[in-house]
């Protein structure tokens, strides 16, 4: 009780205080709501009811009972209710019933991560003690080879993930014949996680699953569960290819919640600089942690997680002397470390945790009262997911959104009606994206020959099959297309943006002669971000402890490893990346007087060439270094904007000023685009490219590109806004459609920005884009948005 009073008091203090009060741009209260319960359904097997009673469950929430009813009717169902509302029982109940009543029945559970499957396994094991018919097992990358045969033979409930279904189960479906013959239910939890690339892939994996089930004569029923998004039913239908009933009315109780928007104070009005949001977020979190109020802090990147953790640990140590009560959590930590943090949080041994969006999903971390969101998470749906992590069971909880200086964050905290009033985004997927579709057609043909007239899901695919036959990977005979290649196509398709090729980070600090063979693996880094985070001399932070990278082994013929040593430094490093974007194919274009806007395919190249050393705390630049690493390239889709030379000359005679101005426009467009695309700002890249022949194929840093623009004979700058996912997930096409709106929005935002000469909330920080950026960008946008 003391704690609950404290939470209210701290919130009041924040509002009243002369220091923090003015920073609070909005407060919303969400009242408590009582539970709506109903008795167990009459048809429920008495042994299941007994098992539930033994676990303290005597009745169902109304949505659980409704789900039971609709599933019993044979309908596909998606349950959409808040965190901690008991949605797992919505699918566990009918599944248990089926397994208890029909010994031959089989069920497949899909979770987006292995950890979630483990969580659910533990929950089911508790029930299975009373229900011996239940034989469940996880089947994923961690399942030892020699145990796999036993799982296939024995388990009637298999918990896995889409990746394993895609590459380990479907291509070997004959070994799973028993499962596919008797597949009764397919459960998809955390449906909202399947947006964009991942969701587009999953929809195709399910199309393949449906073919295999049809082959073995089963038609499984789908039960899905999702956090709140705008279109759960639509997403569920697109992923399963079936009509799905949407159940959104929760009968679970809810505690009172306060939501606060916090905009860090402006510390330099002239430069438009606000107090660093990480420091502000840390200070806010510390107010709660010092009063022993369990708090979760969400950061928007791995680096931000580590920086925040360092600051908060220090703050906690200053007060209590024990910094171990605050833990870090993010992708890249080893599973054992993550499990330990989850356990400590559940047990209350850890009071606080700083996490990336990794903890947004339903991993069980028990009871937390406050969520501090360091930066707008990018989408409204994520905002509510993260805020929902506080107050799962408590009577009163709070969420604080701390805005960064980015235009999107500033827009959100200064337009609270938009923030609180906008429904969560539509989760968009594009299963028919040609890159994704064709890969899954290959996998499908590998699994089972495809009939000439066969549809893939509901999709007509004749021309794709014919194209694959022309390519020589499919061979048509007897009215069917057969896989006609030596390769295993699933190996060449990753369902996620991250590749499967991970770098191991190995600590060599404690090594001496006796320990030569002992490998101290402290983290894993995926291939796509390795060059920007673990280049030689980089400072790599693990739970806020700095390690310096000694060597990075990345050649094809060697193990992918980074050797690091524990160091004692007060700075971190930030990679300097050289970039290049080149047009491969133009697909569409619109030409106006002041602007040629085009859309198509581009090649994006990136090369880490050096790094800056940045002091922890003050964030000053305290040094730099060079790095020699290979260039990484990918093809993707983009929109590009070219302003005719005559127009540019009218705006300014100075190329330097024009480059600054164009970069300002590019920054603004990049950061505002997510409002229209309903994607994360990190799903897009922006670059001011050079279309003169001199620049063809040559990457450049911001500085060297600027020099080249000024010195080159010709001046042909082009703004590229590209989809960072190889092949694109449809962002560029949509961006091209909404471009006029985006330009108008950018112009309004720039004109309304009170800063003097550019700030992070409009054209970017003035010390990066220069003093000329804002006025030039304003003149450019006035022309472009006309």
């Amino acid at each position, binding site marked *: 009780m003391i704690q609950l009073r404290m939470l209210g008091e701290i919130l009041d203090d924040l509002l009243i205080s002369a220091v923090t009060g003015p920073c609070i741009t909005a407060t919303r209260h969400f009242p408590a709501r009582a539970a709506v319960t109903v008795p167990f359904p009459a048809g429920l097997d008495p042994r299941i009811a007994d098992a539930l009673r033994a676990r303290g469950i005597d009745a169902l929430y109304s949505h659980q009972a409704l789900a039971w009813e609709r599933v019993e009717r044979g309908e596909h169902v998606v349950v959409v209710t808040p965190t901690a509302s008991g949605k797992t029982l919505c699918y566990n109940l009918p599944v248990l019933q089926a397994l208890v009543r029909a010994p031959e029945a089989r069920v497949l559970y899909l979770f987006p991560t292995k950890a979630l499957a483990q969580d659910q396994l533990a929950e089911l094991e508790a029930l299975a003690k009373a229900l011996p018919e239940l034989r469940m097992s996880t089947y994923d990358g961690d399942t030892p080879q020699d145990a796999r045969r036993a799982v296939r033979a024995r388990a009637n409930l298999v918990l896995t993930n889409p990746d394993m279904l895609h590459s380990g189960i479907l*291509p*070997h*479906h*004959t*070994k799973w*014949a028993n499962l596919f013959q008797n597949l009764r239910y397919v459960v998809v939890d955390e449906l909202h996680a399947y947006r964009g690339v991942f969701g587009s892939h999953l929809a195709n994996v399910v199309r393949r699953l449906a073919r295999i089930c049809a082959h073995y004569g089963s038609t499984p029923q789908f039960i899905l569960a999702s956090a709140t998004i705008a279109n759960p039913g639509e997403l569920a239908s697109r992923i399963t290819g079936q009509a799905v009933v949407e159940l959104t009315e929760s009968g679970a109780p809810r505690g009172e919640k306060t939501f606060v928007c916090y905009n860090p104070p402006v510390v330099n009005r002239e430069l438009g600089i606000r107090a660093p949001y990480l420091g502000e977020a840390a200070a806010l979190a510390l107010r709660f942690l010092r009063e022993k109020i369990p708090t979760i802090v969400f950061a928007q990147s791995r680096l931000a997680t580590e920086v925040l953790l360092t600051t908060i640990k220090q703050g906690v140590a200053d007060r209590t002397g024990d910094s171990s009560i605050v833990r870090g959590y993010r992708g890249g930590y080893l599973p054992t470390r993550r499990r330990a943090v989850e356990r400590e949080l559940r047990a209350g041994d850890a009071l606080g945790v700083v996490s990336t969006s990794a903890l947004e999903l339903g991993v069980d971390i028990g009871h937390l009262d406050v969520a501090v969101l360091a930066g707008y998470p990018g989408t409204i749906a994520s905002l509510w997911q993260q805020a929902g992590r506080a107050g799962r069971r408590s009577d009163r909880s709070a969420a604080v959104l701390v805005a960064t200086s980015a235009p999107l964050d500033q827009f959100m905290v200064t337009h609270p009606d938009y923030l609180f009033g906008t429904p969560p985004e539509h989760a968009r997927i594009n299963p028919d994206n040609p890159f994704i579709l064709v890969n899954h057609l290959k996998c499908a*043909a*590998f*699994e*089972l*020959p495809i009939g000439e007239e066969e549809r893939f899901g509901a999709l007509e695919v004749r021309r794709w099959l014919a194209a694959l036959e022309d390519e*020589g990977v499919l*061979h048509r*005979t*007897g009215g*069917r297309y*057969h*896989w*006609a*290649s*030596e*390769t*295993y*196509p699933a190996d060449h398709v990753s369902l996620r943006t991250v590749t499967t090729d991970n770098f191991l980070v190995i600590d060599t600090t404690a090594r001496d*002669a006796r320990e030569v063979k002992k490998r101290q693996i402290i983290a894993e880094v995926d291939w796509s971000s390795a060059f920007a985070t673990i280049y030689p001399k980089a400072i790599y932070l693990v739970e806020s402890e700095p390690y310096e990278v000694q060597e990075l082994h990345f050649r094809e013929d060697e193990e992918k490893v980074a050797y690091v040593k524990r160091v004692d430094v007060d700075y971190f490093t930030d990679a300097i990346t050289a970039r290049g974007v080149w047009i491969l194919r133009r697909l569409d274009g619109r030409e106006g007087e002041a602007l040629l806007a085009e859309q198509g395919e581009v090649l994006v190249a990136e090369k880490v060439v050096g790094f800056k050393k940045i002091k922890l705390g003050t964030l000053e630049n305290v040094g730099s270094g060079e790095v020699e690493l290979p260039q990484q390239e990918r093809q993707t889709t983009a929109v590009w904007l070219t302003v005719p030379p005559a127009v540019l000359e009218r705006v300014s005679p100075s190329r330097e000023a024009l480059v600054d101005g164009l970069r300002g426009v590019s920054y603004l467009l990049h950061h505002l685009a997510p409002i229209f695309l309903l994607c994360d700002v990190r799903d897009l890249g922006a670059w001011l490219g050079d279309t003169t022949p001199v620049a063809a194929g040559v990457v450049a840093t911001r500085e060297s590109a600027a020099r080249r623009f000024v010195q080159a004979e010709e001046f042909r700058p082009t703004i590229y806004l590209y989809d960072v996912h190889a092949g694109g997930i449809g962002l560029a096409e949509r961006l091209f459609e909404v471009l006029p709106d985006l330009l108008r929005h950018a112009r309004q935002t720039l004109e309304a920005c009170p800063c003097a000469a550019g700030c992070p909330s409009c054209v970017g920080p003035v010390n990066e884009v220069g003093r000329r950026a804002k006025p030039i960008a304003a003149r450019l946008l006035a022309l472009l948005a006309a």
Partner: protein
Amino acid sequence: MASTLDDLRRVIRRIEAARPPRPAPEPVERLVGGEVVETGSGPLVVVRREFALAHRHGGQALEDALAAPLPLLARLARVEGALEAADRLLFLDTETTGLAGGTGTYAFLVGAAHVEGGRLVVVQHFMRDFDEEPALLAALEPLLAQAAGVVTFNGAGFDLPLLETRFVLARRRWPASLPHLDLLRPARRVWAGWLDDCRLATLERAVLGVDRAVDVPGSLIPALYFDYLRSRRAAPLARVFAHNRDDVLSLVGLVGWLGRALEGQAGLRGPELLGMGRLWEHEDPDRAAACYRAALAAGLPDPLAHWVRLRLARWEKRAARWEAACALWEAASAYARFDPRPWEELAKFHEHRSGDLAAARAVAERALAEARSAGAALRVLDALACRVARLERRLTRGLAP
């Protein structure tokens, strides 16, 4: 309207001209001396060749396989289930569209040999296209049903799971309980030490003395089949059929070779005797030791001889035949590359068995000197120095062993 129709016709003609019709299939069955057989599940190309049992595959007579002690060989190769005689075995080898496994890899040519009417009959089943797979499986089914067991090379890891997948896909019952002799297992024991690898082709050349004049590398076979599917030119496939037939005959040959080697050691070379020793080890240690002794007597290249001496010495030590063991350790300690093990064994023998501490110290000191000049690892030097020091202490204290 008429002109539009004419335009359309012209376009169609142009498209048709640009895409010539598929070339008429060159009859593969004639090229490889087979025939098209109707199976009840569709047609299939079957090539049947008979060999007299006296026929020699390389240097190996096929009939030796029939005389082989099958129950013994089955035990040594860890076969589940009973294998009695070779005359009811099915020798099986597949050519596939790849090594990836999974449901998208096909066995397009399956060679199977069995004994029938006093002759060895090799029957090859070939699907001219993917739609002839049901016929291929239908033809295999009775062969498997009649067999008392299957012999393959690496079939446990590859051919049989692949065929099982094909059977299940076609909704046919796979005879999972059929005893299976995978020759890769005994082959690894016998030849792993001295041949470059244990591939069937390598064994054929080095052991059976088969000389394939124009063999096709296994890695090219999938591509040859895909080429045939597209072009229908069958000529390049003749080599694939020959390759498959040779593989099947080699299975018979290997069983014959192993059978003879298990019955008696006459005519075996040193490394082969060593290999037979390894094969015998789990079954009959005395036979194994006898093979090792014979191998040393027949002559072995250096690293193998060293390995056998240590191995054999271990058996002698276990049987407390100290003189023989010491002689072997003495010989092993003279091996060109320094190896601490025989030195340690000798030192231990003198210290604990014969009680001759001075001799033990002498051995340890010599070993240490050798180790130093060979630049041995620190760990090894440490251990030897410790041993010398301990013996020194025991000598000065004058303690009895």
